[in-house]
């Protein structure tokens, strides 16, 4: 109690202090600003045995957070308060209760920039280090420690950091130490300044320390990883390549395998007005990297390995059979072509026509087991670099978009998907899912403010839960209101009865505020953002969400 009084006193005297200070101090203080954002989601759950939805004991669950960031010239500081009372279904159960889960202070002075407290960071493509947040999925592996960035001279950026990672309201066991250097040759060397070819080269070292607490194995307490990368671009063409290596890192993920890990990623693109082409490939072998070797699920990842597949937005495509990266081993390729038939051309018509083609293929790596009786390295397998293992995923899709008239717009999508449930979802004795998906979307504008959007989706498969159809009607009154009705229908399901999943929602937004209210059934599914996917159970009930930015 006394200390609260003291703090208040200190606060008040500070306010008094700032009020009577000289004009220049006032000016400095006046430049300060506070920004932030807020979100709260709440759901009331009903029992619904037909779709397997259960009512939790609490009946009503909420998640919420508030970010506050204060900035004044080179200085900034911020906090995030988070509250889970209790965490909503499908959210990681480690989130319980409330508290300040993020706080930092940072300053920039000339070429030096320092952050203490919690921070997010990414080196290159994230193959060896990426600390980031996806609030909507409950993903947050922020580092708590010290980060120093220095611009040596033009085009050379150095970053060093040390800290522990966030684990819900606690911190993980391991300590992460990391260093990164980036050189932009065209900025560093005067003679290259006006050259058309641009070259950026970068390198990272990331190491973690965790005590060996295992009675049976001699575990490496320090594990180091390295990455080298280059980005070369010339006009319409660009190339981004990165290679990473990691010393033996026996963990729960890899079955305490002492084999070294490696990952390679390459992406090339060509683009000009009306045409974009992108090709990418990667190979990952034993490259799960966490600051606690015994962590599982989405906890304490140091690095980031995105799936090399299209991130679909249509509901059935995005949440029924999305591919998730396999950090223990994967070989994947992806290609994209985006083309716009120009206005006035034969296929372009009056408004032009857009076509997008995408194909992605993912396989396991080849593995030859090592007999532990003949080899004491505790390496569990060897792998032929260019040979693939079993198929994990395939997606071939095409999308055509067309403005038909001033008021009508149309989009047609077809996707053909092969999905290995056994590996990606960890189910036993189930067949590969082969699905055809078709989506038709149309938007009609009544006038400048009123419009309606319609979606029809069909997913046909003989495996898993059988066929699905989805219809969506969304009416919007610009710029503040929308109402939407959704029905998802599961039919020809070999395991269960035919079920409708209806859902009604409405929303209002003004300036940075947004309120959404929904009622109905939610289908169980996999929700992915970036490289993180989460299984969300079926639910039925009333849902409210409020977001605000200020």
């Amino acid at each position, binding site marked *: 109690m006394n200390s*609260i009084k003291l*703090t*208040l006193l200190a*606060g*008040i005297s500070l306010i008094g202090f*700032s009020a009577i200070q000289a004009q220049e101090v006032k000016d400095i*203080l*006046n*430049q*300060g*600003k*506070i*920004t*932030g954002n807020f*979100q709260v989601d709440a759901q009331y759950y009903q029992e619904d045995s037909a779709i397997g939805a259960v009512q939790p004991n609490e009946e009503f669950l909420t998640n919420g957070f508030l970010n*506050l960031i*204060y900035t004044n010239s080179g200085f900034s*500081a911020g906090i995030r308060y988070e509250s889970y009372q209790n965490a909503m279904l499908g959210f990681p159960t480690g989130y319980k209760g409330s508290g*300040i889960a993020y706080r930092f202070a940072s300053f920039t002075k000339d070429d030096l920039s320092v952050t203490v407290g919690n921070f*997010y960071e*990414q080196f290159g*493509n*994230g193959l060896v280090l*990426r600390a*980031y947040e996806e609030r909507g999925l409950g993903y947050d592996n922020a580092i708590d420690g010290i980060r120093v960035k220095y611009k040596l001279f033009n085009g050379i*950026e150095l970053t060093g950091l040390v800290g522990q990672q966030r684990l819900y309201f606690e911190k993980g066991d391991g300590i992460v130490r990391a260093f990164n250097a*980036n050189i*932009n040759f065209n900025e560093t060397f005067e003679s290259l300044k006006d050259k058309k070819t*641009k070259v950026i080269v970068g390198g990272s070292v990331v190491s973690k320390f965790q005590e060996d607490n295992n009675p049976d194995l001699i575990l490496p307490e320090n594990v180091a990883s390295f990455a080298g990368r280059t980005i070369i*671009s010339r006009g*319409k063409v*660009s190339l981004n390549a990165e290679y990473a290596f990691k010393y033996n890192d026996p963990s729960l993920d890899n079955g305490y395998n002492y084999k070294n890990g490696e990952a390679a990623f390459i992406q090339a693109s*060509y*683009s000009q007005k*009306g045409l*974009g082409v*992108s090709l*990418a490939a990667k190979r990952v072998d034993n490259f799960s990297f966490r600051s606690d070797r015994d962590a599982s699920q989405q906890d304490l990842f140091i690095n980031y390995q*995105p*799936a*090399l597949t299209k*991130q679909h937005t249509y509901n059935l495509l995005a949440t029924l059979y999305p591919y998730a990266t396999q950090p223990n081993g994967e070989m994947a390729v992806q290609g994209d072509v985006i*083309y*716009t038939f120009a206005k006035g051309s034969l296929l372009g018509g009056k408004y032009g026509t*857009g076509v997008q083609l995408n194909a992605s293929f993912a396989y396991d790596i080849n593995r030859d087991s090592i007999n532990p009786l003949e080899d004491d390295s505790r390496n569990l397998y060897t792998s032929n670099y260019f040979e693939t293992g079993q198929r994990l995923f395939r997606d071939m899709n095409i999308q055509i978009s067309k403005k038909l008239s001033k008021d009508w717009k149309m989009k047609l999508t077809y996707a053909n998907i092969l999905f290995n449930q056994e590996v990606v979802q960890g189910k036993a004795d189930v067949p590969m899912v082969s699905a055809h998906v078709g989506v038709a979307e149309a*938007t009609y504008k009544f*006038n*400048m403010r*009123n*419009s309606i*959007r319609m979606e029809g989706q069909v997913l046909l498969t003989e495996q898993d839960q059988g066929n699905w159809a989805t219809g969506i009607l969304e009416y*919007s*009154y*610009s710029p503040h209101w929308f109402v939407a009705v959704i029905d998802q229908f599961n039919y020809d399901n070999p395991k269960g009865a035919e079920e409708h999943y209806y859902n009604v929602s409405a929303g209002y937004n003004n300036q*940075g505020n*947004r309120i959404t209210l929904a009622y109905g059934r939610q289908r169980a599914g996999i929700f992915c953002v*970036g490289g993180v996917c989460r299984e969300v159970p079926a639910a039925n009930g009333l849902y409210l969400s409020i*977001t*605000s*930015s200020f």
Partner: protein
Amino acid sequence: MKKVLFGLLVVFGFQTNTMAQGKLPAVEVKTMEFESFNTSEISNDGKPIIVNFWATWCSPCKRELNNISDMYEDWVDETGVKLVAISIDDARNMGKVAPYVNGQSWEYDVYIDPNGDLKRAMGVNNVPHTFLLDGKGNIVWQHNSYSEGDEYELFELVKKLSKGESISK
């Protein structure tokens, strides 16, 4: 610790009454060629600026930017406005940003915020999120989400700003 934070909040809370209008924070993002770029360098010769957060996987975002793209030339001619599109695509999709932007023939200034640093600094919850800056670089308006027709309201506001009128209600 918590008490210190509380004390700081009291001071900062007091500050908000007198503080300057928000401007774009200075944050390192990437160009479409993956070069570093500091957002403090974004300017438009005293004309309004639209800052729009989007992603290649966000369909309302793409609807909004494609709809504006159809009229962008006229907007620029009439008001001198500049649209800065900030893609929040991460390592999974950031290589697809340039092919998409060029494939759609967008004329915007496009930057990539692959680890959400600018998104966090500007308090963006989800995309699309649009900010409008007046000629002096003050953030004077923002909007989250997109519905067909929102671009007309945006352009009305841009026109007012370009004439030097205030848009506060």
